[in-house]
């Protein structure tokens, strides 16, 4: 009988929930707090099945009081617990940003390293389903900008599980951003990328290491989460035209794996950065600056950026689709880049 690589397919949300369940089983100091994380299993399914398994003492539904429960996670972490706390939509950061920016991110530093905050703040990001400006942002750069938070944004079920386990075991606060469209939820458009092979046993994926999602010789496309999958789709189109794109999935925004980006550009000599966040002051700028600093003379053409064009995310379908990058826009940008040099 032929040996067949056995695939164990899970959706993104089940991969996350499995990671959390395994760590909760391994370590009694791990617990979960947030709005609707209990019986409901998390609005985006990240805590599915945990309440049934661990009960209300360790999977805690909170009032709609993000300052109080995210702040409480900080206080509990300082005592040596390892809380996982959910901010339902990243867009809701405004009501609790003091706790995140001024406390979670700074206490370790201000204490001269004496206080550790081993906690995970997980939050849903992303648009594309007509939820408008207060429920569709990614805000990657907003969080990656401030020192003191590790920020991860996995794009596959495999990485969602492995990076969640890494985040829980990390002694630092980790902002774990998961993309709604990659959770594999029954009430969103089904996409292939939301399902993938996930080994059952616990494993870690390192925080701070990018992944080369596709190898190519002609152009480097750097992306995160949904944009990785759009870039891969674009790369398929381009391959038919004889253009081989290399797609880098950053996975981790802080720390940022600058080396993998620069190494790739040294090989391809062209760079396109794609982001579902706003254009200005964002990931695209950071990646472009890194390459300009370290490999400017390797470039055969100017760096190109594709991101939300500095407008709030609009509601109506044609408007939203206009501002979000997609495979066709990515492919067009690459063609232009190839034409330039």
């Amino acid at each position, binding site marked *: 009988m032929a040996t067949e690589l056995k695939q164990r397919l899970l959706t993104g949300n089940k991969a996350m929930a499995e990671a959390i369940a395994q760590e909760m089983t391994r370590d009694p100091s791990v*617990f979960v707090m947030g709005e609707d994380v209990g019986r409901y299993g998390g609005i985006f399914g990240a805590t599915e099945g945990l309440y049934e398994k661990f009960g209300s003492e360790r999977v805690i539904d909170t009032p709609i009081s993000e300052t109080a429960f995210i*702040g409480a996670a900080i*206080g509990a972490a300082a005592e040596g617990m390892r809380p996982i706390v959910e901010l339902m939509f990243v867009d809701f950061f405004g009501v609790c940003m003091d*706790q995140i920016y001024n406390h979670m991110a700074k206490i370790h530093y201000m204490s*001269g*390293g004496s206080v550790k905050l081993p906690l995970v703040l997980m939050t849903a990001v992303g648009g594309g389903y007509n939820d408008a400006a207060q429920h569709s942002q990614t805000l990657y750069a907003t969080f990656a900008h401030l020192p003191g938070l590790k920020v991860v944004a996995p794009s596959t079920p495999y990485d969602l599980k492995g990076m969640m386990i890494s985040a829980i075991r990390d002694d*630092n606060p980790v902002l774990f951003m998961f993309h709604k469209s990659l959770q594999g939820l029954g009430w969103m458009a089904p996409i292939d990328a939301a399902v993938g092979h996930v080994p059952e046993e616990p494993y870690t994926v390192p925080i701070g290491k990018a992944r080369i999602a596709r190898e190519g010789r002609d152009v480097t496309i750097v992306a995160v989460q949904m944009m990785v999958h759009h870039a891969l789709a674009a790369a398929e189109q381009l391959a038919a035209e004889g253009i081989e794109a290399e797609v880098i999935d950053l996975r981790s925004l802080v720390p940022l794996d600058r080396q993998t980006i620069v190494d790739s550009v040294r090989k391809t000599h062209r760079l396109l950065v794609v982001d579902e966040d706003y254009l200005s002051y964002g990931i695209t700028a950071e990646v472009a600056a890194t390459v300009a600093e370290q490999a400017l003379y390797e470039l055969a053409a100017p760096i190109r950026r594709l991101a939300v064009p500095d407008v709030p995310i609009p509601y109506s379908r044609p408007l939203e689709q206009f501002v979000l990058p997609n495979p066709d826009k990515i492919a067009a940008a690459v063609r232009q880049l190839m034409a330039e040099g």
Partner: protein
Amino acid sequence: MSIPFEHLQWMYETMVKIRTYEERLVEAYAEGKYPVFNIGAGPVPGEMHLAAGQEPAAVGICVHLKPEDTVTAPHRPHHHAIAKGVDLRRMTAEIYGKATGLGKGKGGHMHLFDPATKFSCGGIIAAGMPHAAGAALASKMRGKDWVAVAFIGEGAANQGAFHETLNLAALWKLPLVVVIEDNRYGISVPKALSTAVERNDARAAAYGIPGYYVADNDVLEMYRVSREAVERARRGEGPSLIEIETYRYLGHFQGDPEVYRAKEEVPGLREKDPIRRLREHLLAQGVAEQDMAAWEARAKAAVDEAFAFARDSEYPAPEAALEDVFAASEV
């Protein structure tokens, strides 16, 4: 109510230590800042919020605490830190920005962190309340009888964090005691212009928890209500709210022109000084003058030693600014 002698002694000595400390900081802070006040100059730069006069709020409750109990404090934190037993030498070194400080010079006077005594403070109003609630939650989850105390000023009782945290703590019956120090002013704005209720203990009713009010900076009354609140928390019966009417002898910060209050206000408050009142109480209890003099000398010696340690310590290497952003992690 009878108060054990050792508690009275501890409260008196600690109040003297706090007062001595704050008065010493008035002098140290002024060094190098005049004739034209320059906030960034001198051996103790930056903002300085001192608590002379507010000692009863800190000692009246911390006397009931164990080392395992947690205390969080706001931007005016020295009295709480001293009452919780934070190492005075390392605390002072931190205020001087020295490498031997609690935060290796990265925090300063508003950001003191001492895991050894489970003390922390911060510069954002009411933000320490949820941290204390989290410590209380950790205690409860681990089946301990440890409590957490969050100190805030009366101005912080109008912050969202205050109300969110009280609801959460009451809902989950967390072992938390919130102490509001009403020193009359949120910087310059008097309580009557900022707060819809005359007394913040009334707000306890909104969360179905006990509220206490301590009038006139009375350390013995603070001792009494705090004992009730701390014991209730230890028994697992949930949070309490205490407001104490206290006195701020100094400005909101050193250098505050204090245009918002009458010149005679502070002298009037000093006439009711809580340390002198406790001293009179002790004398009436038959404590000898010379015993109290010995406690005072011990408190002063601790302060002297702390300031000498801070002055003699080295500044951190400038490049140390790049360290301690993240903890080394095994993952």
